[in-house]
């Protein structure tokens, strides 16, 4: 059975360490495998490691699966694990963060390895799901012992165009941005339910073209599908939309550290430093209207920065701020802005589902309480260039989306809630530098706590503070939006990864 699918972009590279990005790693996951992996419900399952133990907080022992073969027929063993870990730490690798959770790795025997972490790490296993195993001999033979990188000037890195994994599919042909063709690997170690023998993947950038290709019957699955096209898919013969909440939360952030906003008509002070202004903003935004109209009912309004799928989620904090324009106006007047004020807003227009439309809706809602938004919507490359640290966090009010790569709340604490700390590289995506000393403390504590109950309490405390202080304005979890042909069963994972092991053709 041939399964044809399309995504909006291409796999950046086939080298499993060259880019830490959801789609790229997700696709590579069909060719390569890590020591552990996720099942269709994002539950951790053993993969190349049959089992593991954690004898000391800092020490892990992995028992590798025996009899696993690489696509070229070579055996998988402990040397490959250590080699892969080292390769993931090499200069061009973008997975150094994940690989770096382990500080030392030693071979105990051919099928046992020991890993040491610098601190106790509750998220180690999650990090390992997408740290794929490569064959040492193959890599050495082909001169690709370091991760492919653009700064690598000598020539193409072999691994970016060729693969040799242990996964259920083998690369047959690849034309970047045009087509990638996979075929089933006969020697795969595990029985999977998929009956797919051949896979054709095409990147299609334009949403309309993608949807058209599905409706016309040329493809079996496409994603993402614009939310407004769901109805069309429902009405069309032979295809249907497939949707569910994604683990990504969309939120607004405010500059809370500058003494004067860069883009505002308020001079000499920063209105966002006043909690009443932040509250006023929170009450002015009608999340239900955004959900209903902009997202066509496909999103879930959110009250905090992590989604239910994320480790550490607590439904208690997920109730959105109430929509109450009257109160919002009152709060603004109280804060000294009875006539409102002007502020510039930065927004990407090709990064998240309907991102620009959300920003426009927010602007219009804020206008109703007197706040005039000057919207600056740009493609992601320009947007990120502007708002990230490289350009001195050049924004006053912005929209951002976040999926913790490790599916754990700690990631959010480190990146979004900790105050900006360039030295320690903490809070680097806390673009508005929302600061609370207690949260800063909590970040370290959450990172080191292995007792799940205690850890949850710490996490809850942090989110409560952030919510009470209105550090951020969460909007919603955006939907996963796929379109499939009738009869094709797939598992739609909340991290938006298409695992071909779960695809069954009619």
């Amino acid at each position, binding site marked *: 059975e041939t399964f044809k699918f399309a995504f909006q972009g291409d796999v950046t590279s086939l080298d499993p360490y060259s880019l830490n990005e959801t789609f790229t790693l997700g696709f590579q996951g069909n060719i390569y495998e890590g020591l552990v992996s996720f099942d269709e419900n994002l539950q951790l399952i053993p993969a190349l490691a049959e089992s593991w133990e954690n004898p000391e907080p800092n020490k892990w022992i992995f028992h590798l699966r025996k009899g696993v073969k690489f696509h070229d027929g070579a055996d998988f063993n402990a040397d490959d694990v250590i080699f892969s870990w080292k390769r993931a730490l090499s200069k061009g690798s973008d997975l150094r963060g994940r690989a770096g959770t382990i500080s030392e790795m030693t071979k105990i025997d051919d099928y046992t390895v020991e890993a040491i972490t610098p601190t106790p790490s509750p998220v180690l296993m999650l990090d390992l799901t997408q740290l794929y195993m490569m064959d040492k001999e193959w890599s050495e033979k082909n001169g690709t012992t370091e991760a492919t990188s653009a700064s690598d000037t000598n020539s193409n890195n072999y691994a970016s165009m060729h693969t040799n994994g242990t996964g259920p599919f083998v690369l047959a042909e690849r034309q970047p941005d045009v087509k990638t063709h996979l075929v089933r690997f006969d020697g795969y170690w595990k029985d999977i339910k998929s009956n797919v023998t051949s896979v054709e993947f095409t990147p299609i950038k334009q949403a*309309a073209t993608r949807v*058209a290709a599905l409706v016309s019957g040329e493809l079996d699955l496409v994603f993402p599908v614009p939310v407004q096209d769901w109805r069309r898919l429902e009405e069309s013969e032979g295809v249907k939309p497939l949707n569910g909440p994604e683990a990504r939360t969309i939120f607004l952030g405010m500059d809370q550290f500058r003494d004067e906003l860069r883009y505002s008509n308020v001079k000499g002070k920063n209105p966002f430093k006043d909690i009443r202004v932040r509250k006023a903003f929170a009450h002015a935004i009608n999340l239900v209207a955004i959900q209903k*109209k902009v997202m066509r009912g496909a999103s879930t309004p959110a009250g905090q920065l992590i989604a239910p799928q994320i480790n550490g989620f607590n439904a208690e904090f997920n109730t959105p701020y109430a929509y109450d324009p009257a109160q919002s106006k009152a709060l603004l007047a109280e804060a000294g802005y009875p006539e409102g004020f002007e502020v510039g807003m930065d927004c990407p227009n090709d990064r998240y589902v309907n991102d620009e439309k959300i*920003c426009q*809706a927010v602007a219009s809602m804020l206008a109703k309480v007197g706040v005039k*938004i000057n919207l600056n919507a740009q493609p992601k490359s320009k947007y990120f260039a502007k708002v990230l640290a490289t350009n001195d966090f050049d924004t006053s009010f912005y929209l951002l989306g976040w999926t913790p790569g490790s599916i754990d709340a700690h990631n959010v604490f480190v990146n979004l809630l900790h105050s900006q700390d360039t030295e320690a590289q903490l809070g680097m995506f806390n673009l508005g530098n929302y600061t609370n000393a207690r949260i800063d403390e909590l970040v370290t504590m959450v990172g080191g706590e292995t007792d799940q109950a205690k850890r949850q309490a710490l996490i809850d405390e942090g989110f409560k503070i952030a919510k009470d202080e209105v550090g951020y304005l969460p909007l919603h979890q955006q939907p996963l939006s796929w379109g499939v042909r009738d009869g094709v069963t797939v598992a739609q994972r909340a991290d938006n990864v298409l695992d071909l092991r779960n695809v069954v053709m009619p």
Partner: protein
Amino acid sequence: MANQDSATATNAIYRFFDGDLWYSFSRSPIVVLSALMTLLIILSATFAPWIAPHNPFDLAAIDIMDSNLPPAWNEFEGDIRFLLGTDDQGRDILSTIMYGARISLLVGFASVAFSVVLGVGLGLVSGYVGGRTDAFIMRIADVQLSFPAILIALLIDGVARGIFPRELHDELAVYVLIFAIGISGWVQYARTVRGAAMVEKNKEYVQAARVIGIRPVTILVRHILPNVTGPVLVIGTIHLALAIITEATLSFLGVGVPPTTPSLGTLIRIGNDYLFSGEWWITIFPGLALILLVLSVNLLGDWLRDALNPKLR
């Protein structure tokens, strides 16, 4: 003195209406119709704040709950307040077309005018003077051609942002657009006019002018220019549509007008997202407005080209 001035003014008006141009204009119903159409579009754009039923650029006045309503005549969801329906933000399509046309017309006409002036000027000089000047101008044209409007716009926008203070950015946006679209279009005119000027300059009437001692600049403007207007008008009128659409593309790239004040082109682009989902009115109505505008401007251009040529009248 003033008296005399007004006398010459009325004289000029009289002469215009008595002139050949007006005569050939008033005799062609199609041309009159397209002139009226163009005028209607320009006027309704200019006076949009006074005659449009809503103000779609006022964020406080639009309501997301009104979004995606079909035209008023739709029996199920049509809303009498919104004659042609609403877009995805709840803006009234009719009003947005009128308001958006302000931006589109300004950008379209100004940028085409800009590239025509620049291109025709350089093309004339290049074709007439020849030699090194020609080589120099044409090599600049080669450089220019290598950059698509998109990149040029990004560059100019970046430079403008670097030079001008932050407060001015929004006001400058439109001018940046005009400049960017204009500057990326001049080569077409320059090369066309250059070709024509190279042929024209060898004709005897040009030599006659040279013998009189007329300055090259005057020869270019008074003698050669009128004889090369044909292709310029053709390209110019067609480029109007292109400029309006390019503006939409550029706005998407974050240079140009913000999404809260959509232009005609942007409205079409927005509506494009909703073609599959059935909200056709967001695209079709602004599309029709654009077609009408382009059609009438081109018909006017055709007429003007013929009318300017005494032999074709």
